[in-house]
Structures are given as structure tokens and as C-alpha cells.
């Protein structure tokens, strides 16, 4: 199993969700996050005064998928979240050692 953690533009979350749904991936955790990568924020000007916006609002989408469909999921996320501009985000892939269903205590393979 893989934990796929994507940092995407807020307005791309729906597109990512739709793309994952097409792969029958419906369970996910979506979190509001702020940060910066290469984009490093930007300077906003309001009424002649400059404001440094260093932490930009992003959305973090986490899914756990079987190894067999991890690549397809990653491709779907990248395709759905891409605009081609700086600030499109990142996808991190981590191995998942074990997973348990809390309601039943059942271990998932």
C-alpha cells in the first residue's frame, strides 16, 4: 500500500477528486494547508503598500491505495492538478506498513 500525499492549488481539489473517482478511489482526507515551495509567495500591493504573502493557501489531499494502482493515481492527480505555472504543488508517495479498520479492528492487507 502507498500513502499518496498531494499538495495542490485550492481550486484544483474538485478536479483531483473527480480524477480519482474515475479510478474508483473515493476515500480521502482533504486538509487546508499553507506553505510554499519554489513559488515562495509573492508581493501583493494594496493601496500603494506592498505586502509579502509568503505562505500560500494550498490543499493537501491524502489517499491510501494498493500498490497496483498507485502509479495510475499519481498520474491522475498530476494531470488534474496541473496548470503549467509555478505553484501547481507536489505529490509525495510513502509506503504504508500496516492499516487497521477502527470499527472492526480488522487488519487490511
Amino acid at each position, binding site marked *: 500500500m502507498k500513502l499518496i500525499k498531494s499538495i495542490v*492549488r*485550492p*481550486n*484544483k481539489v*474538485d478536479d483531483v477528486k473527480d480524477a480519482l473517482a474515475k479510478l474508483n478511489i473515493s476515500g480521502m482526507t482533504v486538509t*487546508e*494547508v*499553507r506553505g510554499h515551495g519554489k513559488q515562495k509567495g509573492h508581493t*501583493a*500591493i*494594496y*493601496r*500603494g*503598500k506592498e*505586502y509579502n*504573502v509568503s*505562505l500560500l*493557501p494550498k490543499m493537501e489531499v491524502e489517499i491510501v491505495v494498493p500498490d497496483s494502482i498507485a502509479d495510475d493515481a499519481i498520474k491522475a492527480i498530476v494531470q488534474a492538478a496541473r*496548470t503549467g*505555472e509555478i*505553484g501547481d504543488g507536489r505529490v509525495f508517495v510513502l509506503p504504508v506498513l500496516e492499516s487497521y479498520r477502527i470499527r472492526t479492528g480488522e487488519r487490511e492487507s
Partner: protein
Amino acid sequence: MSITQPGTGSALRAALDAARQELRAEIAAGAGGGVALERHADRVDALLHQLYVDAGVPDRPVAIVALGGYGRRHLCLHSDIDLLLLFGGRIGPSEERFLRAFLHPLWDVGVVVGHQVRELDEFVELEEDNPEFLLALLDARHVAGTPALFDRLRELFHTAGTHAYILRALLTLVEERHARFNATLYQLEPDVKEAPGALRDLMATRTLAALTDPLLLRRGPADPGRFEEAEEFLLRVRSILHLESGRNQNVLSHELQERTAEVLGYPGAEPRQRVERLMSDYFRHARIVSRSLEWMRRAAPVPVGPNLGLSRDGIRFLDPVRAARTPASWIGAFQAAIEAGTEVTDEALSCIQQHVERYRAEDFAPEPRDRVALLRLLRPRAGLYARLSQMHDCGLMGRIFPEFDAIAWRVVRDFYHKYTVDEHTLLTIRNLEWLLTKEDPTRERFRTVAASLSAPELLVLALLLHDTGKWRDDEHAPESVRMAEEALDRLQLPREARETVLFLIRHHLQMSLVAFRRDTDDPQIVADFGRLVGTEDRLKMLCLLTLVDVEAVSPDTLTPWKEELIWRLYVDTYNQLTQRYGDELIDRNQAGMMELLAGRPADLPEAEVARFVEGLPQRYLQLFPREAIYRHVRLARDIRPAEVHLSLEPSDSVWTLAVVTLDKPFLFSNICGVLSSFGMDILRGQALTNPNGLVLDVFQFSDDERFLALNTDAHAQVLHVLQDVVSGRVDVTSLLRGREQSVLHARSAARVVPIVRADSGASDRYTILDIVAGNVIGLLYRISRVISRHGCDVDLVLISTEGERAIDVFHITKAGAKLTEAEQRALTSDLQGTLEGPQ
């Protein structure tokens, strides 16, 4: 029988003596209390009535009015006879003759008359320099003369404002009087009229109740019967003092204590024992009076409006029966509570709750002033949420706004909302109130936006109605708009305000949709959103509405993440509206153009309207109502190069000047200079230029020196000077010489650090100059003069003020092009120097 005819002057004396003799006998028998004094007052009434008859009827109606203690029919043996001689018109020779004929006989027999002579019209204005007279008037009683005149006096005198003034004056007088007695009632030789706990305190207690809530007398620390016993005791003692001293003497001295104890029949073998019993009774009664007054001073509601009083537990109706009949006065109770930082009492809420079902929505604000009061109530400030909640709880909110009643306790099941729809709505208003009143550095940027709103009550009105459509299960915003239209019909809002409220309700979900779900890095998304909101004012209101609406969904819904997204969209759209509007010009296919042409008045040909508006920024159609645009078209009619056409009109507390002319160097600077030379403070405005060089400048300014209000020919004078300056016949600097210190060399308000920023990237056609500075008269003149001196053309200007800050955005070009980097640096440096200090 006449008592004033020649030879019968002694008849008056005899009648008076007889009255006094009768009173003396009663006092000597220890019975000089209330009943005896009233009888004595009645006899004096009869004498005065006869005097009035004998004095002959003057030309104007006259009324003889008893005042003070005599007005209360407590006329002591040697008390002054306090009278008001009231005339129904101007006092002339006939009235003076009457006065002599009436007063001289009284003086001749040695009666001390405390008389006031007034014309009725003098009571139109409150006589603030004579609080004792106003207090005495509270006990006014008609004795003789024209009763209707007396009735008119009562109508003029008994107003909420007068009562409030008397109440304040009375409390001050009591303080001062007590101070003379070291604020203690335990005097060994007490003055039974003036001392703490004596007769004046007793009357002060009654007056406080009469002016505020008569029922308070029954609720005080003393049983009403004991209060009256105290009065009777004090009157009897005072009567004995007058009898024994033969004059208006009120101090119960050691010598007179023995005699008083004897007259009142106190038991005891020794005078000392009788005196001790007398004084023990005196202190007992004085303590009752004193405690009652103290309690009344704490409990009596202070009048704060028509039939409204402020007491310790909040705002109450002074007369609940009257309140029940006048639903239009109820809104005032909540307004007063907010102003006093308190609540509306449970008693008043019960009164409203009991009667509210009898009235229709229109009954609560039937007159224009009531509708203005309702809107004023909605201004966001501390206490608004709590008071609106009280209005909701007692059923008033749902009657004034039946639309709101439709969502009372309404449950909408979804994943996000934690509260019923009505409470969610009220919480949005609370959030706005908190934003304005609570110190929260993380919200400072939004607070500044909220504080800059010119009509924040419209935002609150929109919040109040934005979710009313949720009484239905389908899409609620259109239904909310439909319901709001009905509410706004009743409120009869001006068209522009009405459109703003409906806009906010119609689009109340739009900003969160764009901010959270659209790519706001895409300039087209921001431009579309900018076109939707149209003006900075609407943007500000929609931004705040979105913020407080999201926050009211649940405690966790508005995260810093969402705040940031809302703020970013706000800033980007603000910049779009103020910096890029010059690139979007009106053409014939422009939205709104068809309506403008179709709705034009008969005197305006289609071609003339189109020629005027085409090429102006699209923003023009959103900023000005159609009627104003038609007025501008008329102003532009037949304009020639050297001419200037103007209109100057008052609107609310400001004046609006519209100027149409053909563009020329220093034009904007000259107009600003003329306004400054008359001491006008420019608050808001637009300067627009179309591609043909036609200029439309619209200024709103305040006339702080009241030049336009106080001078009958001021209007013509301003227009004349403007014509002369704009056409080049007069040099504006010569007009400003007398004001050089304040206009040419004025520093910005010290607390505002000037900001000057030039940007040639924001607009396709213009260099944008953003200026924020302390607002002072002449600021725009100084800025625009510097711009013109640099050879730049002022093409478009947005002028606004927020408190002491002026926020101006200039769209400028030089020889038809944007400024170079070097030109920008030179200009901004010069402007910065101008704004930071004397030139």
C-alpha cells in the same frame, strides 16, 4: 365683592388676615399639616381670582398659575406666593396695566410674591439657565384666567427633553444642597425645608418618580403610608416654626424645639424629655425620606427618549400603557439600550411580547423618520447582536420582518451548519460587530475595511435577510432576494441602497465560491468577479459578508486558510477595480447601455446619450444611477472649448459638484484649487475623460465652514469662480493666497504616513498612481499640481476618504503614453516630499 377698589384696599388685607388667622389657629392646635395648608391655599386662590377679576381683562389672554409649594397647595403661613403670570401673546401697555392692577394690591398688603411674567412663546425653548423655575413649573396649577392658555403651557412644557433636563438639574441641586449640610440628616438644629431628609428631599423623591416611573414610589424602601406620615409631620413642624417666629423661618432651633414639642403634645415631665421625643420622631421621619430619596436616585430611570427611561436593569417604558399603543416607539427602546450599553428590561420585553401580535409590519415604521430609525438601529456596533436577539426572542423581529420569521428555529440538515438558520443569521451580525469592536491583530485588515464602509447598516440589513429563502429546501438565494424585495419595499430605501442590499443577498455565496473554488491567479477570473461587484463599496461589503457568513457556520469553519483566500481575492479585485478600470471602455454593446438608452427622457436623443457615454470607462455605468447620467449628458450639451458647464447640488450632509468641460492642462488641479479656496473638503469623487477629450469630474465635498449654507449668493459665487478659473480668466493661485498656510503648505495628519506608489504594469494604457495620505483641505490640489507640473495628464481619478485618511488613485499619462521608470521616480519623489512637509 371687590377687594381692590379705592377705599377697599383694606378688604384684601382683611381677607388675607382672616385666612391666616384660621391657619394660625389650626397650627396652634398642632394641626398645621397638609389639610390645613391646602385649605389656606384654597383661600388664597379665591383672593387671587378676585384680584384677577378686579384687574380688568387685558388685550391678550392671561392665566394666573400657582407654582412650587403653592402649586401643590401646601402654602405655609409665611411662605412666598409663587406665581406665573402667563400671557398668550406679546406683552403691551394693556398687559402692563393688568400686571400693575394685579400685583400692586398684593405688594401693598405686604404679601411676598415670587412672580414670573412670561409670554407663552417663551416656553417653546427650554429655559436652561433657571432650573429652579423649571422645577417649580412641574407643580404648576391653574388659579385664574384663561384655562386653555394653561393647557397650552402644559403641552409645551411637558416634553421628554424638558423632563430629562429637569431630572439632571434636580439631581445636581440635591447634591449641592446636601453638601451645604455636610450630607447628613442628623442635624441638632435641622432646617425642616432644606436639610437632608426634610421637605425638599421629600419633594425631590416625588419628582423623580413623577418624571420617570410613578410606580417606583410604591416599591421604595418605605411603605407609602410612612412616607406620607413623614410629610405630614414635617409640614406641621414647619407651620409651627412659621407661627412662632412670625416669618418664613424653617430651622428647628433648640429654642423652637421646646415650643414645637409642646404644640404637638409630646409627653414628658421635663421640656428636655419632650424635645428628645420630638427630635427622635424628626430623625425617624427624615431617615425614611432620606432612604427613599437615595433609593429613588438609584432606581429611577433616566429619560433617554420618548417614553423611555434608563434604569439599573436597562431600558424600560416609562408608561407601558402608552408604549403598548405606540409600536413605532419600540425600536427606540433597542436603540437606546445599544447607546447606553445596556439591555431592554424584561418588563419592556414582556410588554412588547404581549402586544406585538396586534400590529402589522408597517406599524413599526410608519413614518420616514421611523424607517430612518430602524436603519440607524442596524449600524454595527457593540451590543447590536444582543439587542437583535432580544427583538427576536420577544417576537418583534419577526413582526417587523415577517421574512425573518420564516426562518425562526429553521433546521437545515447539512454537514457544515451547527445552528438554526435564524441564529446563524444573527451570528453573522455578531461577527461583524466583533470585527469592529474587538481588538484582534489577525483581523486588522478586515477591520479596516469594515470601518471604511459609508453605510454599514446596509450590510447588516443584507445579512439579516440573506438566508430568509432557506425556509424552502431548494436553492435559497433567489428566494431570499424575492423576500428581501418585499421587506425593502416596506422600508422604502433609496434606489441605490436597495440595489446594493439586493446585490449582496443575490450574490452572497459568490465570493466564497470564487475564493475557495476558482483559480484566482487567473486575471480573467478576478476581472469577471470585479465586473460582478462593480464598485469598491460593494466589494468591501461582499467581502465582509462572506467573512462573517462563513464564520457563523460553525466555530471551526472560518480558518486562517480561508481568511487568506478571501483577502487575496479582495485585494486582487480591489486593484482590478481601482487600477485597471481605465482599460475597459463603454461601447454601444455594453451591458446596461441598452437600458440607459431605452430609459432616456424625451429631451435626450439617443445619439447624444451614446456620444457622451461611449469611451468612458465601463465603471461609469455602475457608479452612477441613470438619472445622474442623464443630468451629465445635459451638462455636456453644446460644450465649446473655452466653456465649463457645472451643477452644484446638496445631498445629505455633502454637496455634489459635477463639472463638464474639454480637457486642458491643470484642469483637475484648478478645480480642486477653487474648492479649497472656499474651504471645501473633498471627500469622494471621480474624474473621467473620454477619448474625445471630454472631461466629467464629479466631486462630493463637505462645506465645513458653512460657506454655502450661510451665504445666499454662495452657490452662484462658487460657480462663477469655477467658470473663471477653468476658462483661464482667473489664476487659482491668486485665490489661494489667503489660505496658503492651510492649503499650499498643509502637512498631512501626523498619524497617517503618506504612501505614494506608481505602477505602469497594472493598466494597459495608464501609469497608476496610488496615494494614501492624511486628509487635509487642499490635498488634491497639491497632489494634482505636482502631477501637472511634471507634464502629466490626469485622465482618471478615484477619490475617497476613510476617516482621516485620503485614498486617491490617479490614472496618468505623459504625451499620451505611460511614464518611464525615470519619470515615475521623479514624480513619486516630488509627491512624497510634498506630502511629508512644507515645500
